[in-house]
C-alpha cells in the first residue's frame, strides 16, 4: 500500500517535472527569439486569466480536449493505436450540424437528437477500424488514418455542395436553428452546457473502465492481450467495441464545436485536435479521472499561446514544440526506469545503513 502511494507520488512528480522541463525549454527558445522575452512569456503563462473572454476560450478549449482525451484514453488503455478521433470529430460536427439545420423541433429534443446522431456516427465510424483490427488484424494506424482522410473529404463535400448557401462568400453553412444551439451559461464567453457533458463523460468512462466487466476486459486486453485471451476474455469484442465507444466521445467533441462554439458548420473545424487528445491522455497516464485536469492544463497552454502571439513577437507554434517535448518525455519509459533506478540505489544505500527495512521491491 505504502509502495503504491509512493508510486503515485512519483508519477505525479514526474508529470510536474516533465511539464516544468518543457516550459523551461519553451522559455529558453523565447529568450533566443524575442525582443521582450519576459513580456512574451508572461502573456503566455498568465494571459488566459486576464479577461473574461480569454478565460472563456481556455474553458471552451478544455471541454473539447477533455472529450477528445477521453476518446484517446479508451483506445490507448486497450493498447489500440487508433488515431480515428480526428475523423470522428469531423463527422460528429457534421452530423450534429445536419440535424441542427434540417430539423425543426423543441429545443431540448433538438439538441438531444443532434447529440445522439453525432454519437451514433462516431460509434459506427469507430466500429469500422475496430472490426478490421479484431477480425482481420488490419493495422489500425493505417486504417484509421485513411478513414480520417475519408471523413474529412465527406465533411468538405457536404459542406461545400449541400450546406453552403449560394450567397455565402466563404465556405460555411447557415447558422443552426436556435433550438439546436447549446445554451451559453457564462456571459461574454462561449462556455455552454457542453461542460456538463464533459464532466459526465469523465465519470461515465471511469465507471465503464473500473466498475464494469467490460472495463475489466478492456484493461486486461490492454495489459496483455494473450493473457486476456487465454483467461477467457473475448478480446476481439473488446477491440472493436472499445474503438467504437471511443468514437462516441470524439464525435461529441465535434458536436460541441459546431453546436456550442461556432453555431454552424465551418471548414477545417479541427486542425489536428484528434492528435492533441493524445497529449491530454498521455499526461493523464490514460486515467479518465485525471483527463479533465490535463485538458485544463493543456487548454491553458493553447489559450496562452494564442494570446502570446497576439501581444508579442513570438508565434503560437512555440506551444507545439512544448507539446512534443512533453510527449517524448512522458513516453520515454527508459527515462523513467533510469530515474527509478537512481531512487532505488539511494534507497539501497539507506537499507544498507539499516534505516528502513520495510518495503523492498
Amino acid at each position, binding site marked *: 500500500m505504502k509502495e503504491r502511494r509512493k508510486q503515485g507520488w512519483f508519477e505525479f512528480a514526474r508529470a510536474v517535472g516533465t511539464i516544468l522541463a518543457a516550459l523551461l525549454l519553451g522559455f529558453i527558445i523565447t529568450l533566443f527569439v524575442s525582443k521582450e522575452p519576459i513580456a512574451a512569456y508572461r502573456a503566455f503563462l498568465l494571459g488566459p486569466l486576464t479577461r473574461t473572454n480569454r478565460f472563456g476560450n481556455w474553458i471552451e478549449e478544455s471541454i473539447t480536449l477533455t472529450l477528445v482525451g477521453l476518446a484517446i484514453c479508451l483506445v490507448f488503455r486497450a493498447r489500440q493505436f487508433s488515431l480515428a478521433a480526428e475523423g470522428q470529430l469531423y463527422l460528429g460536427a457534421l452530423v450534429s450540424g445536419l440535424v441542427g439545420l434540417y430539423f425543426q423541433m423543441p429545443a431540448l429534443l433538438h439538441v438531444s437528437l443532434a447529440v445522439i446522431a453525432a454519437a451514433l456516427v462516431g460509434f459506427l465510424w469507430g466500429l469500422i477500424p475496430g472490426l478490421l483490427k479484431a477480425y482481420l488484424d488490419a493495422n489500425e*494506424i493505417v486504417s484509421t488514418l*485513411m478513414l480520417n*482522410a475519408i471523413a474529412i473529404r465527406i465533411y468538405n463535400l457536404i459542406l461545400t455542395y449541400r450546406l453552403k448557401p449560394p450567397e455565402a462568400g466563404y465556405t460555411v453553412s447557415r447558422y443552426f436553428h436556435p433550438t439546436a444551439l447549446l445554451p451559453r451559461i457564462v456571459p461574454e464567453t462561449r462556455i455552454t452546457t457542453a461542460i456538463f457533458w464533459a464532466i459526465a463523460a469523465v465519470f461515465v468512462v471511469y465507471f465503464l473502465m473500473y466498475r464494469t466487466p467490460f472495463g475489466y476486459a478492456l484493461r486486461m486486453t490492454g495489459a496483455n492481450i494473450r493473457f486476456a485471451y487465454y483467461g477467457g476474455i473475448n478480446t476481439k469484442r473488446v477491440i472493436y467495441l472499445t474503438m467504437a465507444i471511443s468514437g462516441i466521445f470524439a464525435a461529441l467533441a465535434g458536436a460541441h464545436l459546431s453546436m456550442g462554439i461556432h453555431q454552424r458548420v465551418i471548414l477545417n473545424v479541427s486542425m489536428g485536435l484528434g492528435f492533441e487528445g493524445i497529449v491530454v491522455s498521455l499526461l493523464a497516464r490514460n486515467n479518465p479521472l485525471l483527463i479533465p485536469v490535463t485538458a485544463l492544463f493543456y487548454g491553458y497552454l493553447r489559450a496562452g499561446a494564442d494570446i502570446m502571439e497576439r501581444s508579442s513577437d513570438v508565434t503560437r507554434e512555440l506551444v507545439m514544440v512544448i*507539446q512534443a517535448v512533453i510527449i517524448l518525455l512522458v513516453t*520515454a519509459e527508459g527515462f523513467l526506469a533510469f530515474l527509478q533506478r537512481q531512487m532505488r540505489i539511494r534507497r539501497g544505500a539507506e537499507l544498507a545503513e539499516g534505516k528502513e527495512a520495510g518495503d523492498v521491491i
Partner: protein
Amino acid sequence: MSFDVVLRSILSAAFVGSVIRVATPILLPALGGLISELAGVTNVALEGLMLIAALVGVVISAFTGNAWLGCLIGVACSAVVAILLAYFHLNLKADIILSGLAINIASSGGTIFILYLLTKDKGSSSKLASLSLPRIAIPVLDGMPVLGPMLSRHNVLTYVAVLLVFLIWVFLYRTRLGIHIRAVGENAEAAGSVGINVRRTRYIALMLSGVMAGLGGINMSMGYLNMFQRDMTAGRGFIALAAVHLGNRRPLGVALASLFFGFADALSNQLGSLAIPPQWVQMIPYAATVLALVVYALQGRAAAVERARRLQERLQAHVEATGGE
C-alpha cells in the same frame, strides 16, 4: 461534352507527366517507410521529417546560393531527427508511434516558428530567394512526341526516386544488411538469437527512412514548388505510410501504389471542368488502401490455412506409412 474534355486530358501525355510529378513526393517517403516497416518499426514521423528537410533545403539554398548544398543539409537534418526518434524508441523505450507523432507536431510547429523568425511571414518562404533542383531533359526521349512530355523534363529527384525503387529492391533482397533488416522485422528475437544486432539494424533502418523522407521533402520545396509553405506536405507522409501497405510492403508494389495515389490526385485536379466534386476522386485511394488491408489480411489467412492443411496431410501420410505408431 465536358466529360469528353476530361477524358481527353487524362489520356494526354501531359497528364501522365503530371501523375509522375505528383507521385514523386509520395514515392520517396514511402520507400523510407517501407524500409523501417520491414525492420518492424513503423515510422509515422515521415510527415514531420519531410517538413524539416523541405524548410532546411530552402533556407540553406537561399543563404548559400547552392541548391545541392541545400538538398544535402536538408536530408542530413531529416536523418538526424530520424536518429533522434530511434534513440527515443530504442534506448529510452518510448513508444515508436507516440514519439513519431511528437516529432510530427514539433516539426509542424517548429518549421512555422523558424519560418516566421527568418521571414516574418508564417505562410511561405516567398521572401527568400531560394533555389530549386534542376529538371532534366533526357537526351533522346526529350524530342519524342508522346514519351517526351510524359517522361522527360522531370525534376532530378523524380529520376532519383525511380532509381531508388530498384536500388532499394536490391538492398532489401540481395544485400546482407537488407536481409538483416527484414529478419529483424519478421522476428526480432529469432534474428537476435542468430547474432544480428537488432538495435543497430533498426537504427540504420530508421535513419534510411529519414533520408528518404528528407528527399521527399526536398522534392516538395525545391522541385514540386519553389518555396516552403507551412504544412506543405499536407499529409503526404501519412499517404506514404498507406502506400507501403497498399503496395503489400514490396518496393515495386510501393511504387505502383504511389503512382495510384498520384493518379487520383492529378485526376481530382482535372475535374474542375466537370460537375463532379474533386473530393469523390480524392477519397478513392484512401478507400482502396482500407480495402487492400482487408484483401492482404484475407490472403495471409488463406495462406496460413493452406500451410496448416498441407502439414495435416503430411502428418496423415506419415501416420499411415508408419501404421499409426
